[in-house]
């Protein structure tokens, strides 16, 4: 990629308050098209709140969120997803009682418009669409690497595969901006490496990625830029190496460790 980087997502003076607590204060940053940007920071820094506000699960008290020219503030999550912004959840979130294939088929919701009347009348176009969707679903499962498990219940998957399924469901929705909330939490080294490889392939398809993560090794390796939050405010933005050396960032993290050592 060459030339001036274009801004995909613009977050401007975002403030989030609820229950008397200010989760995020005057947060301003951009996500550029095609980049991988990581949000890091100690627990409670406001990372997931920011995610929730961007994707419409939480109302912003102030500030603007704009994606490719469309203002996201106040839109319903389903509308935001239709604009190409799809997220995963911090707590493992799949349709546990459904098969792996069904999960993806649900994820493919935006890819197909079957009219209820056509469905009820059983028009052949509906059956054709279903077949097309099943093919696409298998593609997505193959891309992520869990295609052989397609008929199994989601709840019967191992933890690593479950998280892959989560990402697959999000991918099925056809995102141009993918927000991943702690995607490798709880994964071992092998699974994490596998995920980073999958992430690379996702990016190769041109998807912009915004990541919340605690695993510093992964953050450093895959991010183009890093945003560090502490107590609801941004304390550093820049390439990984820079942010890692930033005094405020060190203080934010070391401060915690410091307390732990004393306590």
């Amino acid at each position, binding site marked *: 990629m060459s030339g001036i980087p274009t801004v995909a997502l613009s977050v401007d003076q975002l403030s989030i308050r609820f229950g008397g607590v200010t989760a995020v204060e005057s947060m301003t940053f951009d996500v550029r098209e095609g980049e991988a940007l990581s949000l890091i920071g100690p627990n409670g820094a406001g990372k997931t709140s920011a995610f929730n506000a961007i994707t419409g699960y939480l109302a912003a008290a102030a500030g603007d969120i704009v994606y490719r020219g469309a203002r996201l503030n106040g839109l319903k999550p389903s509308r935001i997803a239709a604009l190409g912004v*799809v997220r995963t959840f911090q707590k493992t979130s799949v349709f546990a009682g459904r098969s792996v294939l069904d999960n993806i088929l649900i994820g493919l919701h935006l890819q197909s418009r079957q009219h209820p009347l056509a469905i009820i009348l059983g028009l052949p176009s509906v059956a054709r669409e279903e077949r097309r969707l099943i093919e696409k679903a298998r593609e997505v499962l193959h891309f992520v690497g869990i295609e052989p498990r397609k008929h199994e219940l989601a709840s019967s998957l191992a933890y690593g595969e479950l998280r892959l399924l989560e990402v697959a469901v999000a991918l099925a929705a056809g995102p141009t901006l993918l927000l991943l909330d702690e995607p490798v939490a709880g994964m071992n080294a092998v699974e994490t490496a596998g995920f980073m490889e999958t992430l690379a392939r996702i990016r190769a398809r041109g998807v912009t990625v915004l990541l919340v993560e605690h695993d510093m090794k992964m953050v450093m390796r895959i991010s183009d830029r890093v945003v560090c939050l502490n107590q609801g405010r941004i304390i550093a933005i820049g390439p990984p190496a820079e942010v890692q050396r930033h005094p405020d960032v060190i203080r934010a993290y070391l401060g915690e460790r410091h307390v732990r050592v004393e306590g």
Partner: protein
Amino acid sequence: MKRLATAAFLAFLFSIPLWVSSLYVLHVLIITGIFTIAAMSLNLLLGYTGQLSLGHVAFFGIGAYVSSLVSLGFAVHLAPDWLVTLDPQPVWLAIIWAIAISGFCGWAIGRISFKVRGAYFVIVTISFAEVVRLVALNWDELTQGPMALNNIPPLTLSIPGLFEFSFIGKVPNYYLVLMAAIIAYVVIARLVNSQAGRAMIALRENEPLATSVGIEVTRYLVLSAVVSAAIAGMAGALYAQYVQIVDPNIFLFIYTVTMVIMVVVGGKGTLAGPIVGGLIFGLLPEALRSLEIRPELQWVAYGVLMIVIVSILPSGIVPALARWWTDRAARAPSQRDQQTPA
């Protein structure tokens, strides 16, 4: 295997009037069939979409009343000097009106359900049914109140000059209800196994995840409510033209409860569930009646049964049977290239 069983079952159902001569038994089957259709429609809203709507009898009753009023004709003052009249219309048209108006009410409830969720929605639906009942009871001019609408004409299909057939009597009505039940089943099955059905199930299972992939909550809640209400309205209309009398008692909460029991015990969220539940709770009372067990005792038993089933087999009979079946089949792993049953 499944197709064979279904075909055999259908053949059996079609053959019943050939070897059952008791009008009483046919009557019981017809009523059971009508309630089963209503239960299937409730299952769509309650079982598949996860909306606990306890006012379902309202749609059924509205369908019955609309169909009756349109086929009988009516004259009512909407204001002291504004008389609205309608001449009697053909019954098939009345039934279409019943479906349309019930569907509209479903649309209204669907839109409300989006704003008013969870336990409050339950209260709204119960209240809605009660209000409709009280309106039917008190708006004498339109509904004859407790005096009931009488002499409702039966459905007549005709092609002028070629033939005319009225569904009078047990046997024709049995087939009418059977056909209607099959149509209802097919409509619901198609919906449930489609993208729309998956969306409804997704909303029930994990709403935040569903919205994150673009499923609009209102759209599918409303769709589910409309189809559910329309089918219930059709059942009500069929009921009206069969028993030919309709009174406000049709809106009693106990009928909603009956439908709920059918769905829950049979298996909510499955296609076969309400049918199993419908058959059990439609036929059981009659079977018990011959044993001369007092109806109150029966209801006590139903209440207890519901508690037991909901506690032990929360998904109902059909899913429990299905699980038991697949557990047995799990010894020989099979390649099934189908989606999991909804």
